């Protein structure tokens, strides 16, 4: 099949390694780190690490070694299709991504009322062991997001879940992304003194960050007010700016509910 070879491109958003893999499949017989970096828009450092794993797994092969790391040419020797091979740094397969994939597949195939145990039994495989707790967490998250309809049963029979028809969006499982917000409040000072968010890579922080930004702004404004009070004789500050800043700094209780 020379010339016109059908391309297999994955739909939806792609992980960095998926982008690298698709470029490798296009440039099958010979590619260097730089080629992949240019086409996939990923960092050469990350590409090099993935290349090392792929070489150890015997999926790509070093075919040419001129001087310097960048010039090395690799070739794809074992094509595995559209999905990128999931490997750890030693070139061994990883199966952790199969857990949610299996749960999601089970829900899609058996679109009936399912209990957590049903799903766990069907979705457990040798590679991806599932605990009831994990399955329940994932299914409750999907239920909260409006993908599953949860029927709480009375009595000893367990709750059942059903995939809502219009939410059967495709084969790739929805990911759970979590953010933890740590806040320290000092009641002596009557204010929030520290805030930090940590969480899953790729989680959207834009919904949490404004709160932290506001905290920072308030701190800055406080400093600004201090300087203003010290040097008020030498620098002329417009009265209304001071007033607006005071309003911004005032807590609702201090301003008496008047905004």
């Amino acid at each position, binding site marked *: 099949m020379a010339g016109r070879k059908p391309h*297999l491109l*994955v739909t939806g958003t792609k992980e960095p390694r998926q982008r690298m893999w698709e470029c490798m499949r296009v440039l099958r017989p010979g590619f260097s780190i730089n080629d992949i970096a240019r086409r996939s828009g990923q960092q050469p450092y990350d590409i090099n690490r993935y290349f090392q794993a792929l070489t150890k797994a015997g999926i790509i092969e070093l075919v040419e070694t001129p001087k310097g790391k960048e010039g090395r040419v690799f070739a794809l020797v074992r094509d595995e299709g*559209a999905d990128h091979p999931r490997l750890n740094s030693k070139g061994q397969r990883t199966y952790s991504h*199969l857990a949610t994939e299996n749960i999601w*597949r089970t829900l899609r195939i058996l679109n*009936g*009322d399912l209990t957590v145990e049903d799903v766990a039994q*069907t979705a457990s495989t040798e590679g991806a062991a599932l605990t009831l707790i994990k399955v329940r967490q994932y299914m409750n998250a999907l239920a909260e997001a409006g993908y599953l309809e949860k029927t709480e049963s009375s009595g000893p*029979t367990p709750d059942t879940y059903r995939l809502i028809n219009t939410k059967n969006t495709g084969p790739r499982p929805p990911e759970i992304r979590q953010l933890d917000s740590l806040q320290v409040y000092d009641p002596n000072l009557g204010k929030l003194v520290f805030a930090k968010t940590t969480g899953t890579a790729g989680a959207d922080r834009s919904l949490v960050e404004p709160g932290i930004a506001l905290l920072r702004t308030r701190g800055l404004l406080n400093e600004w007010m201090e300087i203003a009070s010290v040097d008020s004789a030498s620098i002329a500050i417009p009265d209304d700016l001071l007033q607006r800043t005071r309003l911004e700094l005032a807590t609702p209780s201090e301003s008496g509910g008047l905004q």
Partner: protein
Amino acid sequence: MSVTKIVPLTNVGLLSGAMKRAQSRPIGLPGLVAMYGPSGYGKSAAAAFAANQHRCYYTECRDTWSKKAFLLAILRDMSILPGRTLSEMVDQIAIQLSASRRPLIVDDVQYLLDKAAANVLTDIYNASEGTIVLIGEERVPASLQRLERLHNRVLEWVPAQPATLEDIRQLAGESYPELKFGDDLLEDLNRVTKGCLRRIAVNLYRVQSEASAMMLDYVDMSAWGSKAWFTGEAPSRRAR
């Protein structure tokens, strides 16, 4: 109440075993597996289990599907951007199947076999030489017989088995652990429903709700009496 209880029942084991043999078959042997049986025997439950074991692609056919709709559905499950023409799509599917070595499960295949779309299935198989599992109703072997090119590529026929007493006991135990069922009751239920798991599950639910109403924790034939089983038959005309 819809029922999709999965316990490692007979049919689940049968399909899973057949797929394992098909996946590890020597080069040169055909790779089609056909499972057939009446509706309600737990074929889809078996498919779901096997699909997870082997990371299969899965499509459920509909009566209205054309060739294109069928190919698009498979590509959607592979999450691959579909090509422009039918032949491009067949190529994409075949390459993905043979490169990834993941099997394809086509459920409710009886809708497809009587139409022109059946030849697409042959094309996909010939181009990929992968493992393809066809699941459908009782008349699937007869329909396949007419498609000679597909028929002689079947490695294994898996007839879905009616539920055994052991299956029912297990289903009852897992669904309603707080209630004990008498063997005579389960045997009678199996005889009346002719081993159809879906009806068995519906009837077990009825037994359970009756038993909890009567505050029983053990039900057998004498407790259940001669209350009618749900057999799916339309009610007979009442005399006036």
